[in-house]
């Protein structure tokens, strides 16, 4: 126990002395929080739209103003024919166009569905999907409002369709990204720093010196990992607190569940770092292996930025071995949905399984290396 403490103290002293790793450990989380929170914004406002109104009725004008008044669209041009739309779209002057054919008002008055056409520039699929979401919401709201106003005269009662967005009502990207950011930081500190810290001792020969002392592999590894666990937990909690202040992120679920999810995820990540350190003989190799095995999958395959549902099936299958995938589900559940333990138990279970397997592999490799 005393030797574990000696190793942990030594490691903390070393981290304190190493300006570069200090910078990475403490400033990169805040840097990335600001970067992702403000710059990487998936919200789209002031979408430039062209309108081709061939009906020119009070109803068609009302629909156009509903688009403009929504705050999401800005009227860029009124055109007379489809050719005008094509020209504007090609020159990137507009992202979307609304076409109202003649007879729109007539159909509505007869109780038939009024048909409108919306054209969206699909170059950027993410943006297009978002814009389409706005369009659907506006049209649904308008048709409900119209039906209500017509029928209220006749029956005095109407069902109003109220589109509602759950969990992130304002569709703010920041709230969606923060859990991913915590996973990212966990990977940074837990996997990369741990792997580098162990491999550095191998490179410099201090590992051999320590192995000559009567200290087992386990106390050495535990002592070496503890500071990184503490640092990554602190960094994770700081990001949550900073997000609460900067982005009004709620923490709707219990804090203990948030910390438990974080601890389980970091356990797996630390073991991953140790496993890498037993494979790599130089810091350079360790960094590359960490990057490929942990860092990139966390960024790309966890649902952090790219939704898993829109990946091809084989890639979706790969995501099942990415621990960040489960961590994101758990964390988004706790933070945004206020989920309780039973709701995210599956994800936590997956994290435990991952951590146990990787810890086991690391222990086997370590034992082989030490004796």
């Amino acid at each position, binding site marked *: 126990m005393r030797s574990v403490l000696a*190793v942990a103290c*030594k490691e903390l002293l070393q981290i304190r002395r190493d300006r570069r790793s200090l910078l990475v450990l403490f400033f990169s989380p805040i840097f990335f929080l600001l970067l992702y929170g403000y710059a990487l914004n998936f919200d789209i406002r002031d979408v430039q739209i062209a309108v081709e109104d061939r009906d020119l009725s009070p109803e068609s004008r009302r629909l156009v103003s509903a688009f403009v008044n929504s705050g999401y669209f800005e009227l860029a041009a009124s055109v007379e024919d489809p050719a005008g739309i094509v020209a504007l779209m090609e020159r990137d002057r507009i992202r979307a166009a609304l076409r109202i054919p003649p007879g729109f008002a007539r159909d509505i008055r007869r109780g038939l569905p009024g048909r409108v056409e919306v054209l969206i520039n699909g170059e950027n699929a993410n943006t297009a999907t978002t814009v389409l979401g706005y369009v659907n919401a506006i049209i649904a709201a308008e048709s409900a409002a119209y039906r209500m106003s017509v029928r209220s005269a006749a029956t005095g009662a109407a069902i109003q369709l109220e589109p509602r967005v759950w969990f992130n009502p304002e569709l703010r990207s920041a709230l969606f990204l923060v859990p991913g950011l915590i996973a990212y930081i966990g990977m940074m500190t837990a996997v990369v720093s741990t792997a580098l810290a162990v491999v550095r001792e191998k490179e*410099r*020969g201090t590992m051999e*010196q320590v192995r*000559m002392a009567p200290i*087992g592999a386990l106390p050495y590894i535990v002592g070496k990992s503890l500071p990184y666990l503490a640092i990554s937990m602190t960094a994770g909690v700081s990001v949550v607190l900073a997000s609460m202040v900067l982005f009004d992120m709620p923490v709707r679920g219990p804090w203990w569940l948030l910390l438990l999810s974080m601890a389980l995820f970091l356990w797996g990540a630390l073991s991953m770092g140790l496993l890498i350190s037993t494979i790599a003989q130089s810091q350079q190799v360790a960094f590359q292996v960490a990057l490929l095995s942990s860092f990139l999958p966390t960024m790309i395959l966890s649902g952090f930025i790219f939704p898993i549902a829109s990946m091809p099936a084989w890639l979706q299958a790969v995501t099942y071995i990415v621990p960040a995938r489960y961590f994101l589900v758990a964390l988004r559940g706790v933070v945004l949905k206020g989920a309780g333990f039973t709701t995210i138990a599956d994800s936590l279970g997956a994290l435990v399984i991952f951590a146990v397997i990787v810890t086991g592999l690391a222990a086997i490799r370590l034992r082989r290396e030490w004796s």
Partner: protein
Amino acid sequence: MGPDGSGRVEVRPREDATHAIVVRNLTRRFGSFTAVDDVSFEVRRGEVFGFLGANGAGKSTTIRMLCGLLRPTAGTAIVGGVDVTRDPEGVKSRIGYMSQRFSLYESLTVDQNIRFFAGVYGLEGERLERRRRFVLEMAGLEGRETTRTRELAGGWRQRLALGCAILHEPPIVFLDEPTGGVDPVSRRQFWRLIDHLAASGTTVLVTTHYLDEAEHCERIAVMNAGRLAAIGTVAELKAVFASRPIVEIQAADAVQTMRALDAMPEVEKTSLFGTAVHAVLRDGGLSPDALVRRLRDAGSDVRSVARVEPSLEDVFLDLVERTS
């Protein structure tokens, strides 16, 4: 049949009062390469025992096995009364180890390094304080406790590394080429420390390829290609030349002189020592005067011929030649 069913009777060395290290038939193979081949020797308590050999001769591999860091393929070793094949961890509290890399934490201070290794060895309280002061004094680093190890010159780093390796007062100390990359003055100081250790009863096993350092040792083992080529005191090793006199010849053209010597049946072999030529003569052979005459006849411009005592270098080269 031996207990392991190998057909060979296994002789387990016992700890005895006079020997700190007992090695029997120690062998280590890496795949098809045999790094250490059937090595046996003993080291007495309080002895400074030298391990001499070229790079790759198997010195470090032997030490690593004796420290319990590497499992032997065959054979046994008792270090400080502990069988390294049975209890490699038990050996570690009885030994100190220092390598040529002086493996300290460079970003930490002198004091932080001492305290870390003390923690790893389980030192605390009054003993920690006493040993800490001892190491600082021994390394000459009093007053520089807060200096980072990186900023220390080689000699100080080397002495601090030795201090950290013997914090727990081990009865046996392994030094693996401890003086590599250190200036001659620091080397001399370091050997004075080794002599102090031995005088206080510590057994020291040191590997080196500096022949002048080997002369410091009470006994020397010469390793070549994984095998033990010779073992004994410096005088015993030099005895291989007892009936084979060595003469040193100064001549204007050393290479031509060597060629002339090699042609003589009385000359066993020749080697170049700086600008001089050393010739090993066969038993009873030539007197120096006769040799001068013979060389002059062969057209060599000889300035002097003198019988010399064999140096350790002569011994080493002779052993390496005969065992490879």
